[in-house]
């Protein structure tokens, strides 16, 4: 069972071994069944490459990130303004605050605000918590906190180590999970390549007329 590497894309088995594999292949049927030696059609090879690329692109945290406390800082700033105080109902107040905060937000925050609308009641509950963090009572800046309904909690991310020994809790665009995946997928491709290329080249079709 020797490997040969002079034409790795053709076959990793030497000529003798390819003949032996093909001879075995042609000598037996499995309950009357046998398998062809066809390659994966090229469009499907392309599709698999596309799937691998898509798997990384679509799962980036940016596409599913949770709202941070920073996203609602402008809401908190606006809710005590005279314009809002003049409005009669919570619905009117919330509509005004949401529109004004949306205009002030950058593009990334706008996406988050669209996906995670907030009620006036929840805003009333998170406002003191945001103010407390802004007042420097937390060890982390606002964007290290996640908004869960009416609560502000420390985000569940493990980012870079800060000079004070704590880890950043800000959502990264790339985390260690993706690094593990890069290695995992690479090993998979290498393993399947080694297994498949040990077979006779796909141009060699087994002649099953002799099989029993």
């Amino acid at each position, binding site marked *: 069972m020797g490997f040969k590497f002079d034409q790795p894309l053709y076959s990793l088995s030497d000529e003798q071994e390819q003949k032996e594999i093909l001879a*075995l*292949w042609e000598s*037996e*049927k*499995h*309950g*009357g*069944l*046998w*398998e*062809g*030696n*066809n*390659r*994966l*059609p090229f469009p*499907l090879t392309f*599709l*698999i490459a596309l*799937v*691998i690329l*898509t*798997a*990384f692109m*679509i*799962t980036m*945290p940016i*596409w*599913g*990130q949770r709202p941070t406390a920073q996203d609602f800082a402008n809401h908190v700033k606006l809710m005590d303004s005279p314009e809002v105080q003049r409005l009669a109902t919570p619905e009117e107040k919330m509509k005004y605050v949401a529109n004004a905060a949306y205009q002030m937000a950058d593009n990334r925050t706008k996406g988050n605000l669209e*996906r995670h*609308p907030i*009620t006036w009641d929840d805003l009333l509950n998170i406002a003191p918590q945001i103010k407390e963090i802004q007042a420097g009572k937390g060890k982390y800046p606002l964007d290290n906190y996640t908004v869960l309904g009416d609560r502000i909690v420390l985000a*569940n*991310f*493990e980012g870079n180590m800060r000079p004070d020994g704590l880890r950043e809790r800000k*959502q990264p665009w790339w*985390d*260690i*999970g*993706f690094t*593990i*995946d890069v290695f*995992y*997928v690479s090993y*998979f491709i290498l*393993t*399947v390549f080694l*297994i*498949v290329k040990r*077979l006779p080249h*796909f141009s060699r079709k087994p002649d*099953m007329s002799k099989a029993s």
Partner: protein
Amino acid sequence: MLLKYLFAKNDEIPPGSATIFFGFSSIFWFVVGTGLGSFNAAKLAFPDWVTGTEMFAFGHMRQVHVLAVILGWISMAFGMTMMYMTPALGNTKLWSEKLGLWTVFLWNIGLSLGLLLLWLGFTSGREYNDLIWPIDLVVICGVLLPLGINVWMTIAHRKTQGIYITNWFFGACIFMVIVVFVVGQSPELFGLTGLTEAYLTFWFAHNVLGLWITPVAAAIAYYTIPKLTGNPLYSHRIAHLHFWAIIAFYSTPASHHLMSAPLPEWLKSFASVEGVLILIPAIAFVANILLTMKGKWSMFVENVETKFSITGVLLAIPLNMQGGFQQTRAINWYVHGTGWIVAHAHLALLGMSSFLEAAAVYFGLQQMLRRKLYSLTLANLHYWFFLVGFCIYWISMTIAGLIQGAGKIYEVPYIDVVVAEHPYMIARWVGGTMVFTGNVVWLYNMWMTAREGTLVPAGKYAHELAYER
């Protein structure tokens, strides 16, 4: 007859006996499982129907339905196919027909006991792993291990040097599902709670689906389609890609079921990428089977087993497209915890997997009984009731899930969501009841096949004979 053979010598038991008992047991449990499903769906569509009795509450009945289908119908159909495909593919006979019969006997007893206890309220309380651990021990030692020993020993005693792809899957999947069942008991045995329990619960649930229910169904298609069409399997090398991609990418993404839980985000990122990569084995499987059909597509219309089989293969496409993408952060926040997921689970179990198994049970029972199907009309009626009923269920629950998702995100009052969903709950009940009705017809048809089906001459396959009636 089963009791007579249980104590007979192995050589005195007619070959195929275990297959036949497994086959009829699986259809029986399919009728029970879908009947319970129809009953449960009626409770959601008509909330005033059968109330006041604790045992008939939805919370008691739901898991009985789920496990009757998974451990009764699907797993017994797997047992049936393993009993006849494994020896056939090794050009040998089953290692122990007697062990096969004992397995099907203990399986029926253990499952009946387990479901009864579950119905009475004895439960671990963990979804898909609801049985209490002593019953799971029976499943492992009395069912899966004996089945595995029979399959592994039959493969070891094969008369071919190579091992056909179907037998790779059979041998590997039984080993993996035993590991999954053993590890899956750890929350109960070691008193694990909180996030660890949640993770292990979905590690179990994900792997029962990914390393048992879908890959064994795919392995069955690798046998039935070449056997029915007479074509060789399109590619041995694509089968390699399918098998190793299942091992690599289906065993790892359990935490994508818990994207909203406070698990480490890196673990979710890892699992989510693997979740999309589930499309790789799906592409390999579907391509291999559809290319095997070359020149024989007329059989998709003319032959009932091929019809069931190819429908299952085609349903693998939406199944994996949904499964691959619905678990990403971008989509999961919307559909998590809604009827969309219920629709997806039924697409996997009732759609892709069940259609493939039904084809194999139709084919295998005719072969082992050496009798041609009693009525092609009833078989076609079964197919169309099954397909139309399933589609009604799947589409209605998908729409209901999108409504629930919108209601969840925009904080619509819960009762308004319930009202909006009501028509889809009725549609769900209609669809499920159609599947149940089709299965009753199937049981009758197979029973009559055993009694009155035309005898198949030696050297012929049932599907090669013309109908006499």
